[in-house]
């Protein structure tokens, strides 16, 4: 058994949380059994998994198809349905404070919110994954430097970092596109260390395996080994965390919307629908409830699937 690397901070397994920070247990403790573990070990996805995947497929499909679906324009006000509840005039989910169709807005909201979440996490995956791979594979000085970088990034309260970046670079009066780009970059940057750490830990573990040692022995190039042999094995770990990451970004966007710096109005997002609907809770609570339920179900599904993937591929950072 290889010696535990004294330089490595002892990593905890990850537990889904509602914050951008993985709960950091400074101990070699086996984390709580992922919820889905028992089910999965029987080799089935389970009802829960099927439901979760179906929901996500539905949401993604609706988001992608939004422009061609037979729904109202999300930004057009219809006076007769303003603050009128579900079922009015054929509008299944009613109208919001400005008379815009809520069903349409929640579907377009899915589009904007998921676009943001997926792109941000992709950025984190690409950058964080690459850095983590390099750190775990080469170790030594590169590793120390990169781990230091991750630590610095993680030392910033994640939401505060996002708030700061968005305020400075896309404060007020900027175009929707610019705000979206800055949001993706900010939330992506914030996801990098999380994904980098898991990738690194996983890489470290896989690099001890015989087939890697063997490849090195026969003189294969580092890049080939990294991408060809290590990466495929590290992907499940990255993927499970990525799923959790998407959930976290969805919630973070909502928080930013409450502060006024989420996805730019009038483009709907689940977060800004909730922030806007707040003043109408008395007369029209569904304006807040509909996007809240959407977020709840999506986050639930993502957390569950993240757990499933982890259990299936036995993802533990501390397997050293």
């Amino acid at each position: 058994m290889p010696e535990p690397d004294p330089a490595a901070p002892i990593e905890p397994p990850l537990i889904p949380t509602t914050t951008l920070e993985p709960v950091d247990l400074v101990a070699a403790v086996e984390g709580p059994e992922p919820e889905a573990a028992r089910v999965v070990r029987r080799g089935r996805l389970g009802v829960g998994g099927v439901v979760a995947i179906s929901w996500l497929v539905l949401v993604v499909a609706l988001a992608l198809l939004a422009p061609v679906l037979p729904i109202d324009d999300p930004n057009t006000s219809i006076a007769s349905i303003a603050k009128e509840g579900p079922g009015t005039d054929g509008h299944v989910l009613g109208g919001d404070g400005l008379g815009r169709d809520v069903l349409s807005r929640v579907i377009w909201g899915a589009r904007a919110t998921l676009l943001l979440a997926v792109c941000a996490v992709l950025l984190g995956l690409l950058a964080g994954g690459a850095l983590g791979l390099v750190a775990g594979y080469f170790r030594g000085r590169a590793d120390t430097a990169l781990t230091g970088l991750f630590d610095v990034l993680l030392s910033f309260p994640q939401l505060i970092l996002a708030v700061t970046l968005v305020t400075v670079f896309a404060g007020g009066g900027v175009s929707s596109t610019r705000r979206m780009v800055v949001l993706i970059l900010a939330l992506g940057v914030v996801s990098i260390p999380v994904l980098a750490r898991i990738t690194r830990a996983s890489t470290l573990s896989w690099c001890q395996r015989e087939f890697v040692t063997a490849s090195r022995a026969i003189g294969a190039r580092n890049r080939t080994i990294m991408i060809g042999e290590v990466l495929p094995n590290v992907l499940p770990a990255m993927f499970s965390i990525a799923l959790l990451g998407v959930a976290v970004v969805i919630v973070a966007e909502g928080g930013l919307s409450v502060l006024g710096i989420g996805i730019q109005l009038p483009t709907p997002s689940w977060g800004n629908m909730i922030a806007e609907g707040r003043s109408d809770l008395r007369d029209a609570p569904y304006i807040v409830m509909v996007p809240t339920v959407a977020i709840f179900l999506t986050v639930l599904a993502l957390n569950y699937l993240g757990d499933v993937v982890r259990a299936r591929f036995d993802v533990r950072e501390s397997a050293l």
Partner: protein
Amino acid sequence: MASTAVRRKWFGRVAFVLALAMVAAACGGGGDDDGGGGGDAAGGDEGTPTPGGRVVYGLEAETTDGWCLPEAQLAIGGIMVADAIYDTLTRPNAEGTYEPWLAESVEPNADHTQWTITLRDGVTFHDGSELTAEVVKNNLDAYRGTYPTRAPQLFIFTFANIGSVDVVDPLTVSVTMLEPWVAFDAYLYGSGRVGIMGQAQLDDTQSCDRNLIGTGPFALTDWVPNQHFQAEKNPDYWATDAEGNQLPYLDEIEFRPIVEVAQRENALLSGEINAMHTSDPETVSELRDRTESGEVNGYESNEFGEVSYVMLNASKPPFDNLKARQALAYAYNFEDFNAILGDGILTRATGPFAPGNVGNLDDTGQPAYDPEQAEQLVQEYEAETGQELSFTYTTTQAQATIEQGQFLQQQAEAAGMSVEIVTVDQSTQIDSAIDGNYEAIGWRNHPGGDPDTQYVWWKSTPNPINFGRFADPEIDRLLDEGRTTPDSGERQQIYEDLNRRFAEELWNLWVYYTPWTVATAPEVHGVPGEGPSSPEPFPGLAAGHLVTYMWVDQ
């Protein structure tokens, strides 16, 4: 980081003259009062005021820059507070003319080139110092920019007509004008912005904005910005009510800024606050219903009213171009706006003069909703300038105003324009207007009274108060005529022409006449209070109201 000297350089900006002297004005203004809403009459049928108690008053915004009056930028939230801490030398009566208030008398000479202000005897400031002619002179000098420690920017323009201010005797001040100034007594009220500060506050170079020393009914005890402004009863207050009872009735008043109107209303209904104001149409409409059912005491007033509008910056693209302004006007569907955001209670504003004010017209020629015409104008603009018709709309972060902004955005984009909404807090929004750092901005202004008080907003000469930055020779000419014409029939004609000129040039997009409401818990009374020398108060709410006469059932 900052040295004292550099910090001092920051004093200097805008005295948000918003109706400084504008607001209500003397002379034949007013007009008949078919505008008033429901609610309490002053005193009278509410019963006898009982002393004691506390009012917590929900305001629509915080005045983050404080109350160094000559330099302050007071919107209505700030005026409400200033009215509690300070007194103005004059204030309006039930007819909208001006009577002395802190002063004993305010009299002009025959040709209005000299005004004599006689002060009441025995009035003291909150710090114990006496109200003397010297202090009043220093205040007036501070407003007009000749007092060393203060550097106002807007009031200088407003009071530019003052030649000199002299102390005649310990209780008399004489103000000499460069040109005859008929409406000077109106300017001494200035919507409650021209309060008289204590000498110590005048001379305070560090914290004039928050160490407030006035003669008013309440004295500041604690101000935490965005949380609360607490003031307690001034035991030596000089004023009494019509029956001779000592004012104020309340022991304590707290002003609490609650930006979100839904939250403010909830706070009133749940008892967290017991008074609030609002101009949000949906809330005004709801409060009407709640007043009828007895849940709250509501006082609504449309008299001497003001106008809510989109102010356009004529000094830069796109609104330096008439076609762009016209496009916006044609694109605006007021019917829908009123139905969705106005609960159907709003009256379309066709000009700056609200019903009952001189100059008001039902039809000024302001374009009505015509989407094809709007689209066409947008295309013409783009062909002419080679630029896309795009602009930013600046508003406060209150959800209600953001919704109005989004509505405007929808309408404008339907016609082919592109709009971005900028949200800031109210103080920053005011800064933006003053700076010219905006293209379109949601605004409220021009409360009723003598239309000559609007002069400073619209005159084109290098004028820091013309936030719209337009230069219209026709409007200039009409303003000058209106100022110097005594005949009321002619004046009406002049201001009606002015009104039509606005509709022609579309310097602003007038949207609706602002409905103001003050709602209190059922046990709180005294809004709008009493007049300066009689129980009948000035009925308008566009410049706030005195809290002096408020009382709580014991």
